């Protein structure tokens, strides 16, 4: 098994048109989470066979925006389903594939990763697990800071890179919260040069 973790840190609202804007229907209406995931997946070259979309807070922030609109905004309501965040990056990449949007409270991401480990092999040789969360609340200018993560899992036959076992990730790696899980996994993968950090400038 081979692993690679991508982390994309960004601010929202964004200040310029994204590179993929011509490919995504109404890109300017995207919420922070959909925007970040699209920016991140846009940078990943290899097409996976299966995607897990697994963010602990699901669509809570978009739900709040819809409620703040006194529940009258169709545009905001359309983003209140946690799975719809996959549509913009699939449009950008022109991919069609199975996507499972899973939830599991504070272990949403780690639980999806654990599932993905169990399914690796035929027919899924490459699985992508995605997560996005707000890392810093709004500043004075109303801008928040977010982090989007993509853990790519390949079976041993795919591409280059060092093989990694679950044991390499540490004992009880799946026992803690998603935050702890991401910290542990990024440390291990950083040492193995299987971690890519992308920093969009802070505004």
């Amino acid at each position, binding site marked *: 098994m081979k692993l690679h973790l991508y982390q994309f840190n960004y601010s929202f609202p964004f200040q310029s048109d994204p590179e993929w804007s011509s490919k995504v229907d109404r890109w300017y209406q995207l919420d922070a989470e959909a925007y970040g995931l699209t920016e991140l997946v846009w940078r990943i070259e290899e097409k996976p066979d299966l995607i897990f979309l697994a963010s602990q807070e699901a669509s809570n922030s978009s*739900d709040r925006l*819809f409620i703040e609109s006194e529940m009258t905004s169709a545009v905001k309501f359309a983003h209140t*389903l946690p799975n719809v965040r996959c549509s913009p990056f699939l449009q950008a990449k022109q991919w069609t594939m199975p996507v499972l949007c*899973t*939830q599991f409270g504070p272990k949403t991401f780690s639980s999806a990763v654990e599932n993905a480990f169990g399914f690796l092999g035929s027919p899924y040789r490459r699985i992508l697990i995605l997560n996005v969360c707000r890392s810093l609340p709004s500043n004075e200018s109303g801008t928040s800071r977010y982090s989007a993560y993509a853990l790519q899992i390949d079976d041993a036959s795919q591409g280059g890179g060092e093989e990694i076992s679950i044991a390499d990730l540490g004992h009880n790696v799946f026992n803690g919260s998603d935050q702890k899980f991401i910290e542990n996994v990024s440390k291990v993968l950083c040492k193995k040069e299987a971690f890519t950090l992308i920093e969009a400038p802070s505004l």
Partner: protein
Amino acid sequence: MKILGYSCLSSCGLGHEVFWKSLFEGKVNLAPDRVFRIEDSGFQSSKERMTSQLIQVFSHIRQQAPIESQGLGIILSSTKGCTEDFVSSGAKNESDSIYPILESFLESTQLSPSKLACVSNACASSHGAFFLAELWLRTSQVKKVLVLAIDEVGPFILKGFQSLGALSKTSARPFAKNRDGLSLGEAAGGILLSLEGSSDFEIESVCIETEGFSITRPSNDGRSLGSIVDKVVGNNEMSAIIAHGTATPFNDRTEDKVFSSRFPNVPITAAKWCVGHTLGASGLMDTIAALGVLKFQRIFAMARTEEIDPDFKAFYIRGGSLAMEVDRVLVTSLGFGGMQAALVIGRAK
């Protein structure tokens, strides 16, 4: 996957038998606000209400087959879970709104399964849960999977669909010339699955796919739905189709394109005129409807559909139910975010 037990709770009442009776007799039980509601009351919260509904369904299934924690997986599918609790209280939820219902269900039933998950693939959530169940079973992670599905219709969902202009002014009439949108419905349901054991019926194949086209509607030519329908059907002949049939202009048109080009003579029906669009539970409700079609060797009609849209070319059943030999039923589902899903259910081999 063999179907060992199943049940549902809807506006028709508790149990699949009352649901089938309503489907075959053309009955509807629409509340004054034009929502197909589960009649219950006295709960402090949505979480409590939904847990109670799932326990009723669970108790009914357990009468049909044993359910023990060892080797068991449970998947709860829903679009919005107990989101209404956060709307009414104004509390800031730190986590998703589906997992708390699963936790509450486990606490009430004292179950401690080997595997757990919640799936939220919009209105194709149930199919997503069946897809995950099959992966768990095929990779021998569990022996049985209980797929549960639930959604309720509170102000958040109702006003959301009103904002989209997607609701019918009367009630849903799938594939009708005068269709004017969907009717929302509440439902809870469950199906117990295994690769082993004795069973009359099985889910032969299930497939989900997400297309990068639009957040709110399927591609006009239905290429993704067509692709997964081809995958689940393979070389088999379909006896009948239970369409997603929301009665919205786009969805029905896409389904007609897919069905008319592949199955011009296969009878097609839909169940949302009877229990409404039950969102994340709709795929499971349609699967239970398909079990009724297989059991009675009869396809129910879309009782509220008087005249089929003249642009549609597939073979739709309206008026009365139709006796026929049924070996396999195709059940399709579509959801926001580009979700497309299909499964084939047939007699167990």
